[in-house]
């Protein structure tokens, strides 16, 4: 069996075991459950971002926009009585419907220009959501009664689906990376002119990658809305939902399969350590730590370890 198949199976099995076991092991530990759920959602966003930012080399800041969109779509539909599963599917579809045309448009831009254009999407959606208060509750936000209001049940359930989605997203990343699509994205990242010269339809492949990554980001938003139970525009369209996944992937290893997992875990751990120790300066402390880590391990933790082992 190839090493790739083994890696995919290892991820799937570990994930399935964790999905089944963790809610039982952590029952009665709401803090740890919250942490694992947070890690899982961050992992979904990090692995999603990695497809566009890592594989394709387009530094997207639109992750948070799709996260927020998914949160609102799922919340509104659930408030109207839709089943949560269908609501999550609808969130994913909404992500794709927005990402397709938007991506097709802005993926013509490169580098900084693309980054800024993608950043605007969240701002626009936030304004629209706030303004359309008849549907979204505006600045007052929306309340979602998940799992019949039982907090323990809701916590276990949220952990399971967010972890399951995280594993699926990592596997989707692997499937893309090892496919014809991933090969094309590789070429685009390295040299888009040459890629076009050998017949790669860059515009199409970039749009596919962007759309796929937006679907999982939007579903993550939907899960988050049900888990937290209350959303408002400043929370779910916070730019941090775009920035954190990028930092996580940079920490773990850009463009790798396992990088997002390592990076998301590291990020959540660092965030907790800083919160506990320097509460008054938490964001600053976290920033300093991250900058230090990136200076020491510029390619991310995983690639740095691998190359160190190769050298010795």
């Amino acid at each position, binding site marked *: 069996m190839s090493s790739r198949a083994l890696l995919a199976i290892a991820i799937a099995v570990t994930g399935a075991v964790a999905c089944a076991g963790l809610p039982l092991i952590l029952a009665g530990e709401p803090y740890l459950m919250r942490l694992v759920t947070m890690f899982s959602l961050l992992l979904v966003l990090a692995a999603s971002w990695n497809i566009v930012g890592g594989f394709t080399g387009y530094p997207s800041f639109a992750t948070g926009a799709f996260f927020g969109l998914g949160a609102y779509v799922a919340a509104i539909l659930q408030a109207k009585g839709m089943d949560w599963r269908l609501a999550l599917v609808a969130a994913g579809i909404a992500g794709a419907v927005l990402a397709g045309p938007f991506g097709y448009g802005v993926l013509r831009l490169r580098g900084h220009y693309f980054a800024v254009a993608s950043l605007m999407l969240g701002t626009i959606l936030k304004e629209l959501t706030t303004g359309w208060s008849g549907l979204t509750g505006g600045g007052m936000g929306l309340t979602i009664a998940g799992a019949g209001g039982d907090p323990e049940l809701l916590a276990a359930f949220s952990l399971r689906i967010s972890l399951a989605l995280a594993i699926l997203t990592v596997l989707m990343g692997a499937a893309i990376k090892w496919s014809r699509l991933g090969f*094309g994205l590789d070429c685009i990242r390295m040299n888009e002119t*040459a890629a076009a*010269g050998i017949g790669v339809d*860059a515009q199409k492949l970039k749009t596919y990658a962007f759309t796929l990554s937006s679907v999982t980001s939007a579903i993550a938003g939907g899960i988050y809305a049900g888990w937290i139970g209350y959303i408002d525009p400043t929370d779910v369209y916070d730019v941090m939902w775009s920035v954190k996944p990028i930092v996580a992937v940079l920490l773990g290893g850009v463009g790798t399969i396992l990088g997002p997992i390592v990076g998301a875990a590291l990020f959540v751990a660092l965030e907790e350590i800083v919160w506990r120790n320097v509460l008054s300066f938490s964001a600053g402390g976290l920033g300093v730590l991250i900058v230090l880590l990136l200076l020491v391990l510029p390619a991310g933790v995983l690639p740095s370890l691998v190359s160190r082992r190769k050298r010795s």
Partner: protein
Amino acid sequence: MKAALLDVRGVSRQFGGLKAVDDVSFALNEGEIVGLIGSNGAGKTTLVNLVTGHLRPTRGEILLRGQVITGRKPHELASRGLMRTFQVVQPFNDLTALDNVAAAAMFAGHTRSFSSAREQADAALSNLGISHCREHLPVRMTLAERKRLELARAWVAKPKLLFLDEVNAGLNSGEIEGVLGMIRKIAAEGVAIVIIEHLMKVVKGLCPRLIVLHRGQLLASGPTDEVARNPSVIEAYLGTRGAAAMLGERQ
């Protein structure tokens, strides 16, 4: 009459006030080898960019086998058999030589599976005499090897028409001989080739026909010997005094 492989009709491209290519027309037949020459800044590369879709003409029309392709995207033209190499080599730096070529087999060559793309790439590398670079990254290859890599990438896509933009630039005479041998090999398979050069002597032995650009305009087109003797071509190359000296020498 059968449509020409490539038919360029009155194509122009303007950059601001500069007419880089000005009302150029020419046609190519299947399997033909043509030299496109002209001094630096004559508009050779711009013309190639126009034909291969990297630039859009401001005026004029381009037909491939009778079908209008003006303004089509490079990737589409590449998958329809119109390939090019770049004046400055454009490898995929994090891919091995083998995968560089396999990518072309997969996308421009319409190969679905990785294993078959790599097989074709392997054959292309050995055909071009760079099998030893199979697992090398482009940075570890010499310029001559990288030029051959570009040729391999173009060749593996089984093009109908291949533009080679200064494929010899920066190579020594021995390396040039090697690359010219490769070009003959590719041409022998029936691929039409346009060789872009500013050195007349490189194309003389290889191309039965020449097209000369000068300041964006078509200066001359025809059999190589005739074009090489054309006084206005010599003048464009050597200047008035140089041309007079050279013509005087001959007489």
